[in-house]
């Protein structure tokens, strides 16, 4: 009996262990694969040059720049909106009310909507109705809507993690609600909120579908000169290289190189999030 239980224990432990190792392996395999293929084309000039000869030569600078603008724009729009919404939902609104239940359902549903639907929505509303055209502005707004539920949830979780005893202590010395939020709750939750921001930056940089009809063009020599310019973007660049054009033997390596750049970009951002989290855990003693 005792032996059977011990064997079960060992078996289970090893299943768990194997799962963890499988995850790690798939991560490294992807990275290795991308590195082997991508490093063939990756160089400084690949990063700072424009594409040449019908996308078969040159670099990815416009796409890198485009992704940067789109991501920045999306965060600038989504961040305040999400933080304000989360503060309202967590700190002010009465959570059991019908309205708040509706808001919660809306946020959760938005989080589950496929990103291509956001793309269509952005095209219909921002590109057509608002008349922004296919542009950085329309694309940023579309990504921003996609980011909202993620950011709202991350912020809410960070706010929930602040112990109520801090709020009570603040009210007890005569602080107003806003003073309490500004001077106690937000500083205590800032690292958590920041982690959410950085993760959503990664998301914004990597999305293809929302910008497909709203912001990007497969190929442009011109660099964007206003928020109404259409741009190139890394994920869409990969898509384009793999599906269009007539010289696959030259395009595919560039696609790998672009993918590597994109993954490294996203990875370095996640790493920042991880470092912030580690520092946060060290500070946190409540």
């Amino acid at each position, binding site marked *: 009996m005792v032996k059977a239980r011990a064997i079960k224990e060992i078996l289970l432990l090893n299943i768990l262990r194997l799962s963890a190792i499988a995850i790690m392996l798939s991560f490294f395999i992807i990275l290795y694969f991308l590195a082997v293929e991508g490093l063939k084309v990756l160089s400084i000039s690949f990063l700072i040059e424009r594409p040449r000869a019908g996308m078969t030569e040159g670099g990815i600078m416009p796409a890198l720049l485009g992704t940067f603008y789109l991501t920045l724009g999306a965060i600038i729009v989504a961040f305040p909106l999400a933080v304000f919404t989360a503060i309202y939902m967590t700190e002010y609104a*009465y959570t*059991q009310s019908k309205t708040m239940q509706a808001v919660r359902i809306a946020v959760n549903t938005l989080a589950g909507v496929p990103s291509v639907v956001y793309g269509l929505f952005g095209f219909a509303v921002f590109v057509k109705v608002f008349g922004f055209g296919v542009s950085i502005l329309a694309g940023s707004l579309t990504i921003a809507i996609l980011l909202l539920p993620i950011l709202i949830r991350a912020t809410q979780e960070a706010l929930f993690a602040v*112990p109520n*005893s*801090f*709020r*009570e*202590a*603040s*009210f*007890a*010395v*005569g*602080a*107003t609600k806003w*003073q309490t939020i500004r*001077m*106690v709750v937000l*500083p*205590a939750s800032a690292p958590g909120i920041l982690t959410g921001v950085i993760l959503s930056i990664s998301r914004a940089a990597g999305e293809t579908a929302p910008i497909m009809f709203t912001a990007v063009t497969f190929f442009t020599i011109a660099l964007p000169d206003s928020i109404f310019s259409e741009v190139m973007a890394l994920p869409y660049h990969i898509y384009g290289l793999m599906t269009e054009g007539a010289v696959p033997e030259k395009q595919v390596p560039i696609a790998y190189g672009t993918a590597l750049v994109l993954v490294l970009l996203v990875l370095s951002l996640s790493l920042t999030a991880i470092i912030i989290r580690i520092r946060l855990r060290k*500070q*946190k*003693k*409540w």
Partner: protein
Amino acid sequence: MVANSEKLKAETKGLSFYYGNVQALKDIRLPLTEKEVTALIGPSGCGKTTLLRCFNRMHDLYPHNKYEGEITIFPDNINIVDRGIDPLDIRMRIGMVFQKPNPFPKSIYENIAFGLRVRGVRKKTILDEQIEKSLTRAALWEETKDRLQESAFNLSGGQQQRLCIARALATGPEMLLFDEPTSALDPIATSKIEDLIVGLKEEVTMLIVTHNMQQAARISDWTGFMMLGELIEFDKTDKIFTNPAKKLTESYITGRFG
């Protein structure tokens, strides 16, 4: 039962309190004598903390809570639990110390400065002066004067609780509420807090909830015994602990239940 010659700082009259539909306090009449310590004792769930938290309107932070009756604060005869009274004004006058030490995740200095900052005090000289004064009154100045910029979390539990007392004192309250302030502390830290409370009688009126009957006997002038939301008996502490009028009180303080 209350000596009329003594000056009252506050008095509850017909005070009832409801968490939603649940009545937690029933028709409480409790006088608080100025610059003395009044203790509330009673078994868990008897409503003593609920009563304490009426005094600074902490219940307003959560929905569906309802006060009935009045808590009058003197000398200005304001009814604390009146809907027309801004709880902020009340909390400006009545400070609170919680069960578990709850310093902010800020420096020692900023913890004390907080109550002044929210009142718009910006001048560093005033802040510095008030911080030294409050820490001294809370018997913490000697231990912290060289480390004011350190995180409050570096302090021990007892020091943290004294910091919380200093934080409450910094804004010059007329009254202090203590919600089982030593229940999370060791005996040495507890006795320091008790000494502190006795010393503070020179300046403020205090209401303290405690589970520890010896503590009530040691530091309070008046004691109220509560059960099931009612104030069963209220009298001079000596009287309650030596010759209580009610059978229920006697059973509780002799340890027959609770």
